[in-house]
């Protein structure tokens, strides 16, 4: 039984980390949106596998919930913003693509180094994958710093949340339901607010490149 649950778990986590790298790699926004939904699905699968392994029905239910929200609901919310983003392409991000990929690699190495203590402490087979969770968060953060488009910043933010949720699932035997509900509700609301703001930015002020937003300075 042990062999069986580890491989799908590894597979799902790899899906999450690869989709995070995709947001950095691909320029077209539609592609990064699809990567985001794939990432949500992967996260949901991880939760379900863990839930099944620990025979914890709550965790399975949470997995399904995550799958629905992060896999389907949020991408559809953002799709309208992507539609209104005219070139639909990233254009030239602040740091060119190869350099940012190297950066993502370095960040992953850093994540491995930083979580060595944690992995040693928990010592469950799932714990081996915690650095991937932290790496996804770092990559998401890096994506937000590098990318100019409003959509990519939203995607970066969601990648960070997915990374943290992944770390949470792997490191603990599941966060209490109330907390999990609260967190996902917050994420959902945050995305809704961002969608409205992005709408204003595009429609009212026709700002595509966020670097133009420099009115407020000292």
């Amino acid at each position, binding site marked *: 039984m042990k062999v069986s649950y580890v491989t799908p778990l590894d597979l799902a986590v790899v899906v999450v980390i690869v989709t995070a790298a995709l947001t950095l790699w691909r320029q077209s926004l539609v592609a990064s949106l699809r990567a985001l939904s794939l990432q949500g699905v992967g996260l949901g699968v991880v939760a379900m596998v863990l839930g099944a392994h620990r025979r914890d029905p709550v965790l399975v239910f949470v997995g399904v919930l995550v799958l629905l929200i992060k896999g389907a609901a949020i991408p559809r919310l953002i799709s309208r913003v992507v539609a209104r983003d005219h070139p639909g392409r990233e254009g030239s991000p*602040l740091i060119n693509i190869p350099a940012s990929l190297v950066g993502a690699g370095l*960040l992953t190495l*850093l*994540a491995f*180094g*930083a979580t*060595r203590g944690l992995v040693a402490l928990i010592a469950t087979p799932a714990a081996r994958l915690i650095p991937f969770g932290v790496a996804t968060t*770092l990559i998401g*953060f*890096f994506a*937000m*710093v*590098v990318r*100019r488009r409003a959509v990519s*910043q939203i995607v970066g933010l969601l990648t960070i949340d997915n990374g943290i949720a992944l770390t949470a699932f792997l490191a603990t035997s599941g966060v209490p339901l109330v907390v999990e509900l609260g967190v996902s509700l917050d994420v959902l609301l945050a995305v809704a607010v961002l969608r409205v703001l992005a709408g204003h930015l595009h429609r009212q002020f026709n700002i595509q490149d*966020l*670097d133009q*937003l*420099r*009115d*407020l*300075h*000292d």
Partner: protein
Amino acid sequence: MTRLLALTVVAGLAAIAWGALSSRARVPLSALALVVSSAGAATLAVRVLATGTNFAWSQTNVLPLGGLDVRLTPLGALFVLVSAVVAIASSVYWTGYARHAMAGRSASASFALFTLSLLVVPMAGNVTTFLFAWELMALSSLILVAHDHARRPESISAARWYAVMTQGGAGAITLALVGLAAHAHSTRFSAIATASTHLSGAVASTFFLFALAGFASKAGVVPLHVWLPKAHAEAPGPVSALMSGAMVNLGVYGIILVGRTLLPQGPQWWWLVVSLLGGTTAAVGALYAATSRDLKRLLAYSTSDNMGLVLLALGASGLSLSTQHPRVASLALATAMVLLVNHSLFKSTLFLGAGAVHAATGSRNMDELGGLSRLMPLTSVTFLVGALAVSAIPPLNGFTGEWLLFQSLLHSLASHDVASVVAGTLAVAAMALTGGLTIIAFVKAFGITFLGRGRTERALGAHEATFSMRVAQGALALACVATGVVPYLLVGVVARGLAGVASPSISGWATLRLSSLSGALTPLFLSGALLGALALVAGWRTLVQRRHGFANVATLEAWGSGRHHQSPQMQYTATSYGEPILRVFDDVLRPDRDLDVSHVVESRYYLERIRYRASNEDVIERFLYRPALALLRAWARRVRVLANGSVHRYLAYGLAALVVILVILK
């Protein structure tokens, strides 16, 4: 005793309330309350001085986190008494002055608050109360300095300088007192004093230097004196009198509090620093007093100068204490107190006089005044008494101070220690130079403002001050004369004030006799002899006149080598009077003068316009403060790039911080 304290505080608060709220008879009512409050404080001080015991009273749940603690030592009582006297005079003066300025709600309330806080600062027993009263004093005087902001733009910059430097000074004092309190594990001064014995040398010295910086800036000592001429010149009459007569003393009170009571066994170099600071302040203050054109700026610089002399005496006392000459040390300390009290008396007379002149003519620039003594007879007499007192002319109280300072420096030179000898000689040199320059400053101040002929319509249109202003000025001038002729009034009070800190060193009713040191002076007999001689010579002159049949004095037009018309503009002005000194000391004062001549286009021989501009700004401000402010502004401009508006940059800061944390905590 507690009833007196309650009276002082309640009357003070009443004054503030009347000042802020009542609209009818606002000034007289709050002035009356202030007089009652100062009288209460004065009686409390006198009772503490008489009995020699400390008066203590504390209330823990007032003043959060620190508690209110009042502890009036004889030393503090001396300062309270002086502040009370000056406060009473200023309040009485204020009722008359309010017709001209300072009648508004904020002005009256802050004047009352300023007076109350002045009385409370020396009474503080613990760090929190001291700093609370100290900062209240700073805030209320700041409002008063900025009082005339609508009409005079200079008062805005003066208020800014004053606010920043007082806050800086208060910061330094807070650090020192808080540091000492931390070591003594209690904020009470008594506890700090006992716990200071086992403070390590280096720590005690750092705290002393911080406290010295803070208190010296309040006393207008040189590197940190820049605010004083600006604030005093811009503050209205009674306020600048209170500032010079009482607030500046509290700077000296602080130095004595930290230097002698809290950290009694200070090393010798502390007091060398104090006397060097004192010497330079005296010289710089006197120089700028001699060459300044604005009457109140002149008086303000002379305040710095006198505080420099007080510091000289303090330094001499500390030096001789550290070379085991206790008698000379107590003499020098008593001299410092005598100089201080004298200064409070004559400087407040002068500032009240200057206030009256400003009220009458609306100008403080001496070059626009002149010939006021006929229009303002009593003010000119009181101003003359003040001016002679500052220049230490015999019958008045300044002379006793200078004589005592000379004696203490002379006897401190008797010791063999090289440091005190060098300091002593420089001190005498500084004292002498300032003596001469003060005479120039005050002959100019009195002569150009009051004597000669009115130079502008302002001067010609002047009118005598109102009755209450004259009463206040007269009372203070009489005090100067009284303490000059019978010095025991002053020396007795000072000796009792220093009971705790130093042994009595000056005795004798009519004659000042230095106990166990050779030196005596009898101002009473000297004044008597002078009066007698004056009468003799006057008699001779009238006798001779009558014998040769000239009934009265011929009033003729002044001799101007037969010139057609002698206009008032041909008289010497304050600028020209001080110009020789400016020229002699021009490498020290570095006045900037520029002469721009514009020629007629057609031929260079004909001049269209010649413009000569000379300004004699404070050299320390120009070469020390301006570069520092420029540096600060440059730093601020460079840092502004940090917030250039790009959200990516802001997020990058966060990512960098996250990476650093992860790297460090591996």
